[in-house]
């Protein structure tokens, strides 16, 4: 227990030092610090080497740089033109406009985008057990776990850009490009300005609050067009379900005119032939509705597999929606959720935004997912399940759906060691290996 506490304290201290060195000292300053350390080591005995002289000189340089650059209070107005959405792994550019509101010109400054602190708390650090991929050094110092937790929380690394000179009242536009490393809600917290001292070694920092958020959508792979062999099911409400205005327009039959029918429904050609007004009748809407089921019940330590499953679901959400059908996204978070998209209910963005924030469910039983899907079986033409493993519960879900007459395509994101090819062939599954999802999806397309 206390060993973990010690490790946590040590990693926090280490990250503080690294942050301080990286933020407060320019690259030249860090070079001087490195040279200082070298001369301290080599010049330890003042009788054996003259390196102690460079030690004192470099130390004086650093001290003077520090002391000469303590006060820095610029006045700046910052406005960012952020896009609403971004994608994990893809760079998104935006422009920030800054205006110098002070009375002093601002020259030679750097602009820094600050994100929220990605360091884990002690509870989170303790909760994570050892990772299998660490070497012994990482295990002993607890560095591997620290890195993994930071990578989970951090969406984008901080960014520094140099500003052009700004005279009082002048403004400028900075074009910035950020690359988010994972999905989620990117919260930009504040903006800092760094001014180096006259020697270019030490930075004075002035921070300003400017909070803005961007939704980072999950990474998507090219997904095959699946033909879920399903019947068109009767969707009560027809097109008006999806468009809220007017009647549907599938022409089915002709019938005699009844008083009250709108004139535009008259079939003129028939009137010409028969001499009686004849009206076109429109059928109720039948179209295809699919379900995309996402398994959120991941075992502890399988976060990477879950991320891949979310990416797979996102890829399918995009590909299935380009066809003329409705898509229901079903998953269990703190309750059973269902989000619908397609045919005017909204584009893939709605589902992708939902998937961007999907989290692992650790407190509900798996049966909730099964119940949610089963309750909708009447309106479903087909079901695509993205599963994290293939144990008994999941096998039962797939079998139950198939027995109810719903065609199911099950994609399992799993390591080949845990799910053999024979099981896949026997149960009619598709296995997607984490880290090689694109190949797996291409394989799915070929298999069809």
């Amino acid at each position, binding site marked *: 227990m206390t060993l973990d506490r010690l490790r946590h304290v040590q990693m926090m201290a280490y990250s503080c030092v690294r942050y301080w060195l990286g933020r407060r000292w320019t690259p030249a300053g860090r070079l001087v610090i490195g040279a200082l350390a070298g001369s301290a080591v080599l010049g330890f005995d003042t009788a054996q080497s003259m390196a102690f002289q460079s030690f004192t000189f470099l130390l004086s340089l650093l001290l003077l740089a520090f002391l000469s650059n303590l006060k820095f209070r610029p006045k700046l107005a910052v406005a960012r033109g*952020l*896009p*609403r*959405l*971004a*994608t994990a792994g*893809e*760079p*998104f*550019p*935006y422009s920030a406009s800054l205006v110098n509101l002070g009375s002093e010109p601002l020259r030679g400054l750097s602009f820094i985008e600050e994100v929220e602190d990605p360091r884990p708390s002690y509870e989170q650090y303790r909760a994570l057990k050892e990772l299998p991929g660490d070497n012994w050094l990482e295990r002993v110092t607890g560095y591997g776990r620290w890195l993994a937790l930071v990578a989970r929380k951090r969406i984008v690394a901080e960014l520094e850009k140099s500003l052009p000179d700004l005279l009082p009242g002048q403004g400028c536009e900075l074009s910035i490009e950020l690359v988010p490393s994972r999905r989620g809600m990117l919260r930009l917290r504040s903006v800092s300005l760094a001014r180096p001292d006259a020697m270019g070694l030490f930075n004075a920092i002035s921070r300003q609050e400017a909070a803005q958020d*961007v939704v980072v*959508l999950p990474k*998507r792979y090219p997904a095959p067009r699946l033909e879920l062999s399903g019947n068109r099911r009767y969707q009560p409400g027809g*097109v*008006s379900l*999806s*468009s*809220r*205005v*007017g*009647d*549907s*327009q599938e022409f089915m039959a002709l019938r005699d005119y009844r008083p009250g029918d709108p004139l*535009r429904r008259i079939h*003129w*050609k028939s*009137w*010409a032939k028969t*001499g009686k007004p004849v009206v076109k009748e429109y059928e109720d809407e039948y179209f295809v509705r699919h379900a995309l089921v996402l398994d959120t019940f991941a075992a502890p330590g399988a976060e990477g597999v879950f991320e891949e499953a979310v990416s797979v679901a996102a890829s399918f959400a*995009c590909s299935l929606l380009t066809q003329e059908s409705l898509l229901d996204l079903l998953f269990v978070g703190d309750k059973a959720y269902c989000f619908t998209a397609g045919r*005017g*209910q*909204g*584009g*893939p*963005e709605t589902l*992708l935004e939902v998937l961007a924030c999907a989290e692992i469910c650790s407190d509900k039983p798996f049966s909730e997912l099964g119940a949610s899907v089963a309750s909708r079986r009447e309106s479903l033409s087909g079901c695509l399940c993205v599963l994290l493993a293939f144990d008994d519960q999941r096998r039962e879900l797939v079998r139950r759906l198939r027995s109810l007459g719903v065609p199911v395509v099950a994609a399992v994101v799993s390591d080949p060691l845990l799910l053999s090819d024979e099981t896949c062939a026997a149960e009619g599954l598709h296995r997607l290996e984490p880290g090689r999802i694109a190949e797996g999806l291409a394989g799915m397309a070929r298999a069809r």
Partner: protein
Amino acid sequence: MTAPRAPQQTFLEIAKNIEKVMRGQSAAIRKLLAALAGGGHVLLEDFPGTGKTTLAKALAKSIGAKFNRVQFTPDLLPSDILGVSIFDQKAQAFRFHEGPVFTNILLADEVNRASPRTQSALLEAMGEGQVSVDGTTSRLAELFFVISTQNPVEFHGTYPLPEAQMDRFMLQFSPGYVAPEIEVDILSDQQTKHPIDGLAACVSLDDVLALRRNCREVRLSPELKRYIIDIVGATRGAKGVKLGASPRASLSLMKAAQAAALLDGRDFVAPEHVQEMAVAAVAHRLSLDPQARFSGLTGQAVVERIVKSLKSPA
């Protein structure tokens, strides 16, 4: 008949007239008139209630043209737009009942609400300049100007226009919300009655047709032609763009730049005219990579970036 007006004079009069009704939208009015003079059609994309209908009505009233408005709904049929052959019992013959498209200025409101079948009917009429229904072909008016509007696609219940069809619109722009001071003036104007009711025609249809002819005569140096081609060509290889702009885009940009030069009273095009119209003429024709679209990239951003990266002829 009065002496033909100078083209710039025509422009200024129409603009002034519209400004009485639409305050603080001079850039939008400029683009609208540029499309009118260039012989193309316009797509306005904006939130509801920003005055798109008022703009179209004001334009129609200012030039004394016939104005029709069609509200697109999901159950709208192509025949509701183009027209239908009705069987006349007395004459025992089919009579073509013209649809709302037979007009000078057509406001197609919320065009992305209709089904793709209906949308393509309108777009074909725009492109061809004539309508074929039941074997009969009818030509549309010589001055046929369509102002389509659509809500930004995040609202539910929409069928976004296919990108290949977006090519048919010469310009796309958004009037946008106005500054608060101007919005106050709008409230003052419309306190008792709507100013559009009192709007009268200030130029005639012939003046507008003359304007179109003059627009085609505005001169363009080879260097600026090259600049236009460079801008459009750069969209084809730009990052995040699946399909770049076609040569139709270059033509539209050229015509729009000519119109802008004419608006400024010049008889030749200057670089700022090309830059002014570049986004409106090119951005909506780009087909973006879905990945890039979800990263927040817009056609407008792509074109702006391209213009900033090319050296302007000086």
